[in-house]
């Protein structure tokens, strides 16, 4: 198994790519702190089922990542487990409806950056401090092709471009401490996040994809698992497109 014996913190696990990440990582033998925003019985059941099926532990941790106090309480839960942290996957993100720049308020832009960028940095600050103690670790930031191509709403695209730039800076800063930092840029993926897209935008997007279909979230998660694993030990500071071929 790709991640046997590793401990991973994954944010945004309740649904979509995050849920697939949690599932793929458990399947590959990793224990998971599964961060989610809202407590739910079904999520708890999912975590328990994964734990039993794969012989790992998958612990739900509920927190609002943009709230400093809530975030620190979540980190305290991780610390209380007294387990080393090997992997961080920064997945939590929001997008909002597709709209023009002139119709996007400053408040909306700030709220998207709060989740997609600033919260990601704070989780990374916490995780890399733990990883640095053992001089090893891997961080995978879930960015987006929008951060490379600028083809989504302006605040979402810019926040993901910021994640990609931060990935490069963090990779430089932490290489000496044995920590790899990479980003993954999914294209059109079949999740709730893109449910706000109009039919016209969906059709236009699909027409640009060589494989002619959206990604299944598990197809994104599998690449993230590889990047987080020791098999990617010579990969850092990179952004990998997983987009079905948008050329």
């Amino acid at each position, binding site marked *: 198994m790709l991640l046997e014996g590793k401990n991973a913190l994954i944010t945004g696990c309740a649904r979509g790519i995050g849920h697939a990440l949690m599932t793929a990582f458990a399947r590959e033998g990793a224990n998971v702190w599964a961060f989610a925003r809202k407590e739910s019985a079904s999520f708890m059941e999912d975590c328990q089922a994964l734990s039993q099926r794969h012989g790992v532990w998958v612990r739900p941790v509920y927190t609002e990542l943009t709230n400093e106090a809530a975030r620190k309480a979540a980190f305290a839960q991780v610390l209380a487990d007294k387990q080393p942290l090997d992997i961080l996957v920064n997945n939590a993100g929001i997008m909002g409806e597709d709209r023009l720049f002139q119709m996007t308020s400053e408040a909306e832009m700030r709220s998207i950056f709060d989740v997609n960028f600033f919260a990601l940095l704070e989780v990374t600050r916490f995780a890399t401090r733990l990883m*640095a103690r053992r001089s090893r670790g891997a961080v995978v930031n879930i960015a987006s092709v929008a951060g490379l191509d600028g083809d989504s709403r302006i605040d979402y695209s810019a926040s993901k471009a910021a994640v990609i730039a931060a990935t490069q800076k963090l990779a430089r800063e932490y290489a000496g*401490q044995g920590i790899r930092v990479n980003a993954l840029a999914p294209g059109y993926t079949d999740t709730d996040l893109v449910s706000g897209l109009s039919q016209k935008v969906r059709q236009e997007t699909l027409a640009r994809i060589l494989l002619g279909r959206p990604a299944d979230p598990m197809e994104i998660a599998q690449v993230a698992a590889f990047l987080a694993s020791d098999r990617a030990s010579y990969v850092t500071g990179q952004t990998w497109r997983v987009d079905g071929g948008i050329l």
Partner: protein
Amino acid sequence: MSNLNKYVDAFAAALEVAPDQVPSLVYGESPSWDSVGHMTLVARLEDAFDIMMEMDDIIDLSSFEKGKEILRKYDVDI
């Protein structure tokens, strides 16, 4: 091992200096205590005393003596 020994060991290991040189160390004045060495030192101290330092304390950690003062905030007496 006493807290003082753990404290000195953390500095010596993180900044790659002999233990007897540790008490005179000041950030930026020792070749190995640069920004990378600083974060290695923080990691060593956090691991040695099982604490998580606040960002302001990481910035303020500028000398061997100042570090003792900062650790007191985390109930670590050197």
